[in-house]
């Protein structure tokens, strides 16, 4: 089960955070800082899986942004690694070459995309067209 999904940049600023298991608000910033510290301290040659307290962290770096997913013991790390890439591909398609600013200024849309893909810590949909369809309809509606 996925415990949390974070997008944090190199300076430690959170760009997206979604928790599937409750974490107190004041503990969240602490968690995020620790997570980003452990990811930043690793070099490119090291593997993308870290053991952190009682979760496993799987992270991928895209330019200046780290996408970190915290999972419990039962998840297949490599499948989640693939899932992170899938998520980024969906974002790429929607925003046409997504950048950090796109995510910042369109946070609610990114939340909608993530909600279509992960429900309650379980992966529900991985097909790009199906994920983006509701969002595109919403866009149409709000434009008119």
């Amino acid at each position, binding site marked *: 089960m996925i415990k949390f999904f974070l997008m944090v940049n190199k300076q430690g600023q*959170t760009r997206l955070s979604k928790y*599937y298991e409750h974490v107190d*608000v004041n503990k*969240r910033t602490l968690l995020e800082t620790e997570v980003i510290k452990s990811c930043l301290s690793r070099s490119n040659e090291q593997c993308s*899986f*870290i053991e952190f307290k009682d979760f496993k962290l799987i992270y991928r770096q895209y330019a200046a942004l780290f996408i970190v997913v915290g999972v419990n013991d039962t998840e297949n790390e490599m499948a989640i690694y693939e899932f992170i890439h899938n998520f980024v591909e969906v974002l790429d398609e929607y925003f046409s070459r997504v950048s950090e600013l796109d995510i910042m200024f369109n946070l609610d849309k990114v939340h909608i995309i993530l909600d279509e893909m992960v*429900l*309650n810590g379980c992966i*529900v949909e991985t*097909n790009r067209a199906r994920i983006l369809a509701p969002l595109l309809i919403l866009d149409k509606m709000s434009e008119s």
Partner: protein
Amino acid sequence: MVVPSLKLQDLIEEIRGARTQAQEREVIQKECAHIRASFRDGDPMLRHRQLTKLFYVHMLGYPAHFGQMECLKLIASSRFTDKRVGYLGAMLLLDERHEAHLLITNSIKNDLSQGIQPVQGLALCTLSTMGSAEMCRDLATEVEKLLLQPSPYVRKKAILTAVHMIRKVPELSNVFLPPCAKLLHERHHGKAVGLPILCFSSVDKRIENWMGTPAYRRRVAHTHRHTRSRLSCPWPPPFTSPTLTPGILLGTITLITELCERSPEALRHFRKVVPQLAQILRTLVTTGCSTEHSISGVSDPFLQVQILRLLRILGRNHEESSETMNDLLAQVATNTDTSRNAGNAVLFETVLTIMDIRSAAGLRVLAVNILGRFLHNSDRNIRYVALTSLLRLVQSDHSAVQRHRPTVVECLQETDASLSRRALELSLALVNGSNVRAMMQELQAFLESCPPDLRADCASGILLAAERFAPTKRWHIDTILHVLTTAGTHVRDDAVANLTQLIGGAQELHAYSVRRLYNALAEDISQQPLVQVAAWCIGEYGDLLLEGNFEEIEPLQVDEEEVLALLEKVLQSHMSLPATRGYALTALMKLSTRLRGDNNPIHQVVSMGLSFLPHPAVAHCHCHLHTTLAQPHPPGGVHLRELLGHGAAAAGCGV
């Protein structure tokens, strides 16, 4: 005159422009004040914009609890945009500890029963993220109804909401068990699900009528040129394929997994569907029909992984199911394309499943070989999962894993800390009677160069393995000595006691041990465990040391003054712990009975040493021993030992 509050974009710009934390806080506080004011008496139509700003602020870590009631109001509104923001807010700001959360139960119930799909989707999403036990109980019937609705969009969400409900309220498993079988069956007798009729009551009728027309499609295609081919269908995409409703399948498998993990009856019940699952998996692997969900050439790896996980749970400790799965697993293992990560993920899950069920021996060997292949892979992630799995297997399939021992030992040289840690654990687990010498050499070489956080584990691992498999006592003593010299500060406390016991018990090696320890001590007095053992040994066998006949090492004359000087150095050194000083003192006192020469130098050093001892009881005890030994006293064996034993036990230092 109210200063107009900022739009979200402007707020973000301002926050980014703030140079210091204090400035940022100021901007945010000002904005929060605006938001609060607008909640009180602002325009309800713009409320959702205020709330979006609040989410951004909340994400940065600032308090946002005053937005909770607003979320409720927005959820209850009839506009879709309001509902969307309200539900998102409920997910972000509310949780079961706030009493407010129960208030949305009613809204969710209304939304779920009204049959407007996007709204149902929103409600289900929020319910599955923050639904508490009471909410789940209230809404279970609603969700159950939605499980069997024709629209796949809502169904897949309802299924995963059911998973959440079962986690919160395990009794609900009974409610959700019957639909599962139906959901799986439906896949086989699947019919083409056509365009469902949906209605947005709050949306302009024009759009509603327009959405099915070619004009709409053209517009969509024009705006997103690069996705034209994919988005030629309105929402939700009709499933023209007669056999597949993949999103639902993924959800169903997750639900069944959750049910089986929680109750043994569910497990028995679902064992019957193993052939069906096997069929689904077989189709995915061989015909590759689910091209919509394929990732780098592997059809729907996430579904494959999920099915494999379920098969693992169903086949565990059950001969019959495991037998049906054998062929299938072999097929998956051989047919999966491993050039990309997705294929490797599936292969990894297959290996885990093979290891957990009662599989055929040949299959297990295949699994271990796959892991061995992974170990040679250049991708670090793959090596990591291979090492982790091999560690799990080493108990049950020891001989199979042994074959890959050389590769594992190579992995010790990894620069990555997670990998070298895994390699260390695995190497220690692979040590057995026949390979102990070779492995110990490798491990000792590793100990010299390994990162500090692994030293303690490595040292204790080596000592433990040495204890279990030492071919000869002398080798054992050598090994421990080497560990103490290399990583003395990291060994556990009982290592000293173990070593002293070991040496004490090996009569023929007394001379050898004392000589080696003396040499080691002469070189370096900083490693405390080493110093303690050496001091003890010199005290016990000092006479052997001074006699100077050693078989294998070149003879070197050691006289009393040198030994004394060394012990004095230990006593005086600021690096020595009190316990170490205790050992040295005791050694000196023992020597005074064993050496034939004048005892005065010894007594001088002892008196000096006593002044270092911190604890009065210890000093007292040593004083007592000192005076006892100072009297002309023949070096009686048992009597002396007893005396020293009592005294030293009281003082807390070893004898």
